[in-house]
């Protein structure tokens, strides 16, 4: 009799420590959301944008300094950022000028800018709603691939950051002929000698 009571008490205790979870909760327990991925949009606003804006170098001056350095790798170390060897060098820049053209037909919309200072050549600014590349993720001097160790997660991290940027850029209503100032990132493997494509984080009138 005593042993039966003990067994019942143990069974009740065991069951009371169980918790019924929903399918959604079970899925989350099986594959928890990476905290960096979950916080990517907030990170974009609180860290990535300020880092790019505060570290932005005037494009014409930057290009002249890269050219003067002679050795691109040295210029990258001094003026840019490369988180890992398999990535191009990332440069935070600001450039102002007149909008020559805007292409909104492509989902990778872009505007063409005539920089107002000499030496910056042809500049294109991505507008979205699709931003190509991972410049905003890879130019950030904070998290890198080692914080993920999973290429797909790292890719999703970039996608979320780009989505946050696109949401901001959607407010841009500039027209051809407007004078604007752009803050953003461009990447290169070598001394830039052609069109510069900037992925922006801020466009000011």
């Amino acid at each position, binding site marked *: 009799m005593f042993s039966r009571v003990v067994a019942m008490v143990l069974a009740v205790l065991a069951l009371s420590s169980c918790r019924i979870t929903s399918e959604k909760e079970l899925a989350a327990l099986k594959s928890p959301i990476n905290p960096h991925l979950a916080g990517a949009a907030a990170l974009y606003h609180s860290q990535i944008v300020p880092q790019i804006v505060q570290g932005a170098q005037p494009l014409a001056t930057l290009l002249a300094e890269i050219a003067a350095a002679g050795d691109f790798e040295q210029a990258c170390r001094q003026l840019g950022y490369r988180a*890992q*060897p*398999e*990535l191009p060098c990332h440069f935070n820049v600001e450039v102002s000028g007149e909008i020559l053209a805007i292409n909104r037909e*492509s*989902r*990778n919309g872009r505007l063409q800018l005539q920089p107002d200072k000499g030496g910056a050549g042809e500049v294109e600014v991505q507008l979205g*709603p*699709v931003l*190509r*590349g*991972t410049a905003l993720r890879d130019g950030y001097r904070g998290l890198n*691939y*080692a914080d993920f*160790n999973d*290429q*797909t997660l*790292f*890719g*999703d991290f970039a*996608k979320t950051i780009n989505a946050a940027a696109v949401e901001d850029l959607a407010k841009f209503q500039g027209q051809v002929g407007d004078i604007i100032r752009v803050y953003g990132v461009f990447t290169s493997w070598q001394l830039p000698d052609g069109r510069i494509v900037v992925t922006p984080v801020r466009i000011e009138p």
Partner: protein
Amino acid sequence: MKKTVITLSLIAGCTVMSAQAVEKGTIAILVNSLDNPYYSAEAKGAENKAKSLGYSTLVLSHGEDVKRQGEQISLAIGRKVQGIVLDNADSQASVAAVQQAKDAGIPVVLINREIPVDGVALVQLTHNNFQAGSEVANLFVEKMGEKGKYAELTCNLADNNCVTRSKSFHNVIDQYPEMVSVVRQDAKGNLLEGKRIMDSVLQAHPDITGVICGNGPVALGAVAALKAAGRTDVTVVGIDGSNDERDAIMAGDLYASVMLQAQELASQGVTILDGYIQNGKYDGKERVMYRGILIDKNNAKQVQDFNYQQ
């Protein structure tokens, strides 16, 4: 007399090489199928580097068979090799085999395919498959004018690298609502399967205008099917960057690919292994990625045996 001197020189050279090899021991190089140009190139890159550093080599192909890979690892342990360079048969199922070698005191350098565990392999060198897939997908969408029906032929969904590539394709393409996926099939990474599937895709969906493929052989299979059907209006892209893909790009049959630096990656793996064998330590990062190089008509001629000549 002259002939005798040459013969003696050759014998002396061989003796030096052999003594050096005996002194430094053997490196085992285990890859997938040597029939595939990619795996053949990485085996060649590892073998050449190992020999140049004074090792003899044991090159084996496991053909993505985990059991056979296990037997080959046991063989390498039994042969008391100095180290193993491994492109593994299956990311998850290979952890135990790598651990077995480590427990036997044999360092393992993983190339191409990673395992989901840290601290077992000496180093894991891989390609940035996500970047490769995204870059070629961007070009694919652009060439298709951001709209149209397309097929996806994956390389082998049992391989994590292929899964990553497929995800990266969709990471890009799915942002274009007028790009319509009509079929997605696994061509198991080989040319004949790629051709067979493409033949049936063309029967079922004659209105497709694009095919995005998970690797080079599958892309070449798709190209063969399209040629046989007389179709020149379908954009085909792939990933790997073999000489055959290069030639297909230059001929206008394949629109673009991404060249993976197979030889460089394998060679670097042997260099790291040699450093560890000589000094007993490796201070670098465990996981190292290599970038793929986007190849189209403008730069295809710079591809040679998975090396990109500047």
